């Protein structure tokens, strides 16, 4: 296997790892906090919001935005590390 291919497969592995972590967070804030466990979370409050309701109508959206920008940063670094940036 050439160096380039080794690089490519290491890069891809790391990419998949990032995806797994970020998508877990994506799932937990929306489907977890906003849907499946909202009743439990609704016992807590964030100012005038019940917490589960806040996640469903506000919080999950903020987290989505942050997740993409974190991904952009991680990938830009990863591109550099393996020399795939341009």
């Amino acid at each position, binding site marked *: 296997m050439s160096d380039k291919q080794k690089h*490519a497969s290491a*890069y*891809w592995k790391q*990419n998949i790892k990032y*995806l797994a972590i*970020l*998508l877990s967070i*994506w799932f937990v804030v*929306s*489907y977890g906090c*906003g*849907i*499946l466990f*909202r009743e439990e979370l*609704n016992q807590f409050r*964030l*100012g*005038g*919001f*019940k917490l589960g*309701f*806040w996640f*469903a*109508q*506000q919080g*999950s*959206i*903020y987290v*989505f*935005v942050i*997740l*993409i*920008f974190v*991904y*952009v940063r991680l*990938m*830009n670094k990863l*591109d550099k590390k393996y*020399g*795939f*940036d*341009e």
Partner: protein
Amino acid sequence: MSVQTWTWILVGITFALYFGIAIWARAGSTKEFYVAGGDVSPLANGMATAADWMSAASFISMAGLISFMGYDGSVFLMGWTGGYVLLALLLAPYLRKFGKFTVPDFIGDRYYSNTARTVAVICALIVSFTYVAGQMRGVGIVFSQFLQVDINIGVIIGMTVVLIFAFLGGMKGITYTQVAQYCVLIFAFMVPAFFISMQMTGNIIPQIGMGGKVEGGAFLLDKLDTLHTQLGFNEYTSGTKSTWDVFAITLALMVGTAGLPHVIVRFFTVPKVKDARKSAGLALLFIAILYTTAPAIAVFSRTNLIETVSEQEYKEIPAWFKNWENTGLIAWSDKNGDGKIQYVAGNALSGKKPEYTEARGTNGERLISNASTAENELYVDRDIMVLANPEIANLPNWVIALVAAGGLAAALSTAAGLLLVISTSISHDLIKKQLKPNISEKGELLAARIAILVAIIIAGLFGIYPPGFVAAVVALAFGLAAASFFPAIILGIFDKRMNKEGAIAGMVVGISLMLFYMIRYKTGLWMTFDPRPASEWWFGTSPEGFGTIAMIVNVVISVVVSRLTPAPPKDVQELVENIRIPSGAGEASSH
């Protein structure tokens, strides 16, 4: 100045702006026509994507829907934003690296088959046409409400405007017009929200005001919950849908968003893979501004509505109420004869829309012939909440007019994006790639322009003669996209072993199953039979949520079939390895 004068002025200025941009950004080549030359900056692409994405439905209907659905409305909020995470992480960078013009291009090349390409073209056409019909209707409604012209003339004006900038500029013209349209629509959406939030909670930021306190010291949401309970509605923050159905609808909308061709194609317009990721992030940021404001508007307007009308004398009611009653979006029948409006849980009508008689009642209200026996006396169409909100809150006339300009921007930008996908599917995927591969650049450009002309006329006809099923089907476009494209694209990138047999089988079964369920449980089949009742839904899944199940079926079938049939050829496996690496994306090209 009157609302109408203001509206003409603001609509006139914004339209002049769109025309100016259209003339400046004329497309000279197919590359400019299909992907805006491939050199749009991530920031501009982010705004254009946001405008493309936020349709008349997001702008006009969504806050209203949420204000009637309460917690259940979260499916739209999470569903229509969470899809961008999938898009940014799983699709956009790889499709940009692949670097062609369209989604069927990817499917056709990755699955080395013109059959796969044709299936993808058909799916793209079904999804885009169901979606665009609703937009044209939206344009007509805004024109008729605010400018007092006939709804059909409104549709024709809208068609002409889209035609000019899409026909001349293709993707290039559309992209830069959409940047302007994003600015118009977000400004128009936020200004009334700031005003109302300030009025009700003393905090100018609606996202914070929503969780703030109202006069008297109670939290706004608690107050609304109490009002709801008193009037016999479900608690606003609880909702009525089953947890599973909320889950399924949210997932179908998210995955559908990531599979919509007019959204995906936007990521072909930026120069590099890096830019594709970044512009997906920016697009979601721009979308999130509206999507986190909408639930706040929903809460404000719901509270305002209940307080303004509940137990009030009809004779004392503000003018906006009677205006909307005259346009047929509000109906009241004084069932207990006390001259006051009782607004409680239950359907005020038998049937879905009010049927007005020509006569007026003793209080001056429009009489209806289909009042139900339920105690509730008031019918309010959900679509009016955003449009009527500034009037309900007594905002200045220019703010009310601004909302009209914003609604038009939202509807026109989305319609233009969809029409481009339709025309590209025909001129590029069908004519260039299949029927007449040796067509000249000039010929293809001409074909694209003719296709867009025809598509606009068809879309306009849908707007003027809306088939009854259109409204119901627009929401289902997401299910169709989820059931067809999403798995084929994701598997094409992440599963090197996926072959044409698997992908084609998956797409065909997925979209057929979704169409079947839609017709059986939602739309019926024109005359022949009525949709089956909710009690017969599979696993209690609504047709809106069924895209989730159809998608899973698609994935399972694709994987099983692909493992039973030969692996894809070597060069295709190399193609997959190549798109996984960001460097060397080059420009989007046709060969």
